[in-house]
């Protein structure tokens, strides 16, 4: 008789309740991305503007000659606008292959044969992108607030600009939600992550260029609804209590952002399936 039977054994341990599998997908996805040096380099680069702003806050707080560098509410709006560049690159780097690679490897049928729903699968994939995007938008913006409090040695700034807490939260949320949902929807449309990356970049640049071209011809800035990025910027101005940069009504800007998120949901509902039926 063998000391230890290496054959198949029945499992008698615990099992998690259904509904928690999205966390497994999210953890695995984040771990995989963080193991890549190229991504870590991109992440470090994305924190460079934070360091610059932190130095600005330090200098303004400690040298009276540099009081013109004193942060304002607008500073945080500008900071998040700068981070949009990194949101764009991280969305492409991380998001393009999230569903496309699974489609290429026929992995959807493996996922969906396990006790998880299609929406749990999407939630797990989205959590990967949301977490990494939040780490270059909401997190550094909030840390900048903490740094300001630390260097100034008082809560005066935050007390005078208390709206910044919900403003940073809401704007960051809209920024990362729009990028994540759009990218996941595009990723579900193809088996090639490169093609998905090109599609996303095309969508951002083409709509932006279209708006600028039409604006240049007509002189009308309410046409900003043509570009989701510009519609989001318009919303950002309103959220940070700044003068609006376009004539686009707020309800229209909200409509563009929410519409794109809803449209992405519809695409995902149709594309994330274990069986692809070609009629």
């Amino acid at each position, binding site marked *: 008789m063998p000391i230890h039977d290496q054959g198949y054994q029945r499992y008698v341990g615990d099992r998690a309740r259904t509904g928690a599998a999205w966390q*497994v997908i999210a953890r695995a996805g984040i771990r995989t991305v963080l193991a890549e040096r190229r991504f870590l380099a991109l992440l470090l680069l994305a924190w460079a503007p934070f360091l610059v702003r932190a130095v600005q806050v330090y200098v303004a707080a400690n040298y009276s000659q540099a009081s013109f560098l004193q942060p304002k509410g607008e500073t945080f709006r500008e900071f998040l606008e700068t981070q949009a560049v990194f949101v764009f690159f991280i969305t492409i780097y991380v998001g393009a292959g999230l569903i496309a690679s699974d489609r290429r490897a026929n992995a959807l049928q493996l996922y969906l044969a396990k006790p998880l729903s299609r929406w749990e699968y999407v939630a797990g994939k989205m959590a990967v992108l949301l977490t990494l995007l939040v780490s270059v938008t909401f997190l550094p913006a909030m840390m900048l607030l903490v740094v300001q409090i630390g260097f100034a040695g008082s809560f005066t700034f935050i007390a005078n600009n208390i709206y910044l807490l919900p403003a940073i939260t809401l704007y960051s949320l809209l920024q990362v939600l729009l990028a994540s949902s759009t990218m996941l929807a595009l990723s579900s449309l193809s088996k090639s992550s490169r093609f998905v990356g090109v599609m996303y970049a095309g969508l951002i640049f083409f709509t932006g260029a279209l708006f600028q071209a039409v604006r240049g011809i007509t002189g009308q800035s309410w046409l900003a609804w043509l570009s989701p990025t510009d519609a989001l910027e318009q919303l950002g101005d309103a959220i940070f209590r700044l003068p609006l940069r376009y004539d686009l009504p707020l309800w229209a800007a909200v409509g563009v952002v929410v519409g794109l998120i809803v449209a992405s949901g519809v695409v995902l509902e149709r594309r994330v399936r274990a069986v692809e039926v070609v009629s």
Partner: protein
Amino acid sequence: MQAPVPSHDGSGRPDGAAVVELRGVSVIYGRQMALREVSAAFPPGAVGLLGPNGAGKSTMLKALLGFVVPSQGEMRVLGLDVATSALDIRARLGYMPESDAHIPGMSAVAFVAYCGQLAGLPPADAMQRAHEVLYYVGLGEARYRNVETYSTGMKQRIKLAQALVHDPDLLFLDEPTNGMDPKGRDEMLELIRDLAHNKGVNLIVSSHLLPDIEFTCDHVIVMDKGAVATQGALDAVRGPQGRVFELRVKDGAERMLELLTAAGYEVHDSQEDVMRVFVPGEAGAEPIFRLAAANGLQVRHLKQSVPTLEDAFARAVGAE
């Protein structure tokens, strides 16, 4: 053949009750009817789902997994309704798909452990089970290699490993020996047989290969054109008692075929002049000799064989 070990699925179903039941299930893809009012009961143990390509075997498995929604009918798996309890069912199911499938960018052991976690196992248990299951399917030495570098046979094995890692009560194996070399195929069939007969795992093997079903299963459901052609215990499906003879005659195969058919014998599978003739009862080969002699045909080869599932299959789907 060894008696199946009683399964421990904990469903509270009475012993011997069907693990899978379908009642009047139809599945339509666009204009194509993939399943036509299928009613079938899969008893515990190993059940073969047999049929030619396009018979609806894979569609049936996908409907049972909840991947496709039937246009009509009812399905129950392990006593649970597929329409309302798909997630609970999938927690107790293992599925080995027909096509190549893996999670990209992972080593074999990470992939299988990941599948275990998705099925609800804690991370440490999932990793331990992944190592055990990979040894069991014969991939122990290759478990740290990236799955994308695996050969076709190894990919089949790892699909079985990911289906097994969470210790399912019921396994769906869709064409498990696809693309495997003869040695690998034999090993895969041994594994399937061991799971069903020694480990107490109920399984459904979908295949178009008759020998695979004969080797691994106790029951069979034969499908053709989206409908169940016949079903039952393997011995019963093999057909009535009698003898099957392999027959070859000199310069007159077609004539002999006509004569035998006209005389009321079942004749299948005329390949390279060899036909299989089913002679019911205990009559033996004498009637065949008499018929040949009476018509001036010379018998060159006559060999008795056991009625196989192939005969039953041909009978069930009406093929010659």
